[in-house]
């Protein structure tokens, strides 16, 4: 039997990084995700796998350390919470522009500004619609359990290297702080420098006589060259939408109404679905696992059978815009959200749902 360990989502991220061949973590502490670097410092992976763990002097510094590490073809990651992510947005844009792979974790707290250290989902726009400047996107994974916090580090690296793009794990304070049992998957070794040089011919692994020097940059002053780079990026985002949409449905087969929720809110809404079903209301749940690429096609597939669809978020209504684009005016798109770090109970969501459908 595989070993099950009780751990916080944050701890799962750290343990998973070590066990999945991560080469370097660079970060700066902030609640509610400080356990990530704390766990790494306790585990001392530099003595076992050789993974580097470094507390940078700021979030700006950590994201640019990722740029350096990723340029060398290394598996590098950082983590922070909302205000820290804002500081990293410039770096994320550069990483996207230079086509560099990395994993970034945002354990979201309430905003704007310093906000609160309680859970939030108000960084959806920042994660999915840019954040930094320019026409870029990132893979955005939304875990809803400690096990997914563990698994999405590996998945994040796989997708980041598949697309040569940053992958963001968009968690929240609940998923980061909650303890659940986590199954440790088999260890993956770190890659040697030789393996990296062979597998990633674009990486700056040291010029050899048989090739030209590799240059990592997001700068292209020639308009035609720069448009070609942008076209290439857009083609990548299109491919993400075609090949890597992930979602989960619960009780959607015969549903007349669907709630769309991600992260901790998906867990809470699953209980809401059970309450509705007990009263004979045909309510289902769609949980986007990738927020970009968004499960637009699944929503469009479900829309004809539905009377209403509802977005439930710890925000003032951000993901709802992507749901509206998918539904395209065919059915009412309702909303329920709480702000300021308040997490509603399943009953509260159910009351809000009933109020909307009885309008």
């Amino acid at each position, binding site marked *: 039997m595989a070993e*099950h*360990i*009780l751990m916080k989502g944050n701890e799962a991220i750290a343990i998973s990084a070590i066990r999945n061949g991560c080469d370097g973590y660079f970060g700066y502490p902030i*609640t*509610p995700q400080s356990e990530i670097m704390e766990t790494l410092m306790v585990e001392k992976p530099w003595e076992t796998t050789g993974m580097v763990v470094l507390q940078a002097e700021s979030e700006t510094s950590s994201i640019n350390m990722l740029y350096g590490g990723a340029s060398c073809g290394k598996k590098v990651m950082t983590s922070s919470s909302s205000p820290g992510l804002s500081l990293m947005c410039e770096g994320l844009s550069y990483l996207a522009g230079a086509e560099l792979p990395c994993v970034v974790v945002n354990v979201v707290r309430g905003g704007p500004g310093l906000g609160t*250290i*309680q859970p939030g989902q108000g960084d959806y726009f920042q994660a999915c619609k840019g954040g930094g400047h320019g026409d870029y996107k990132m893979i955005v994974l939304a875990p809803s359990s400690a096990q997914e916090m563990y698994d999405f580090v590996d998945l994040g690296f796989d997708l980041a290297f598949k697309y040569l793009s940053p992958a963001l794990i968009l968690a929240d*304070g*609940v998923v980061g*702080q*909650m*303890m*659940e*049992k986590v199954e440790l998957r088999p260890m993956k070794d770190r890659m040697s420098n030789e393996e990296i040089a062979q597998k990633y011919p674009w990486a700056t692994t040291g010029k050899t006589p048989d090739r030209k020097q590799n240059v990592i940059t997001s700068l292209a002053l020639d308009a035609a060259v720069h448009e070609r780079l942008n076209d290439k990026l857009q083609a990548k985002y299109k491919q993400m939408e075609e090949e890597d949409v992930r979602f989960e449905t619960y009780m959607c087969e015969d549903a007349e109404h669907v709630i769309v929720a991600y992260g*901790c809110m998906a*867990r*809470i*809404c*699953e*209980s*809401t679905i*059970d309450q509705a079903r007990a009263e004979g209301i045909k309510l289902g749940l769609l949980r986007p696992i990738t927020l970009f690429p968004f499960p637009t096609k699944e929503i469009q597939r479900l829309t004809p059978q539905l009377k209403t669809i509802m977005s439930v978020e710890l925000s003032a209504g951000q993901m709802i815009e992507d749901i509206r684009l998918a539904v395209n005016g065919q059915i009412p798109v309702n909303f329920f959200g709480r702000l300021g770090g308040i*997490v*509603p*109970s*399943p*009953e*509260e969501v159910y009351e809000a749902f009933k109020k909307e459908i009885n309008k």
Partner: protein
Amino acid sequence: MKEEIIIAGFGGQGVLSMGKILAYSGIMQGQEVTWMPSYGPEMRGGTANVTVILSDKKISSPIISKFDTAIILNQQSLDKFEDQVKPGGILIYDPNGITRHPKRTDITICSINAVDISAELGNSKAYNMVVLGGYLQKKSVVKMENVIKGLKKSLPERHHSLIPMNEKAIQEGMNQIKDINKA
């Protein structure tokens, strides 16, 4: 089987670690578990609480508003959580420092003088294990052997010598919990 528990008291009483040991015991018994703390700028003397769910099936929401069992270790928590116990549920509290006692008649109310009991055992740090024992006497959600396994998993190896003392505290809690009201 599904048991939804809130454990609430002062920071420093061992509320979070008691929840962790209970959750680990559940894992040792093959159950699904969640452990969701109140987190924030908390400190020794401030309030702390944790929601623990043990279940035979996958657990959906880790955030709940009604509990099968409330384990209450200070007045603020009693005032806050007494109404959130499901009818027919159990409220276990330590009367030490309580001036407004629980009033509900539709739930089972039990008291455990864990401050005195742990002092008699000569180890006030075993306070939370006395309370855990009292709880396990009322609800045998996990077997004692799995609690000991859970303790081993929760405690760092250097503290494993303390396990027999913790076991004794759990046993004493089991022996000394009292019924105040039967639902």
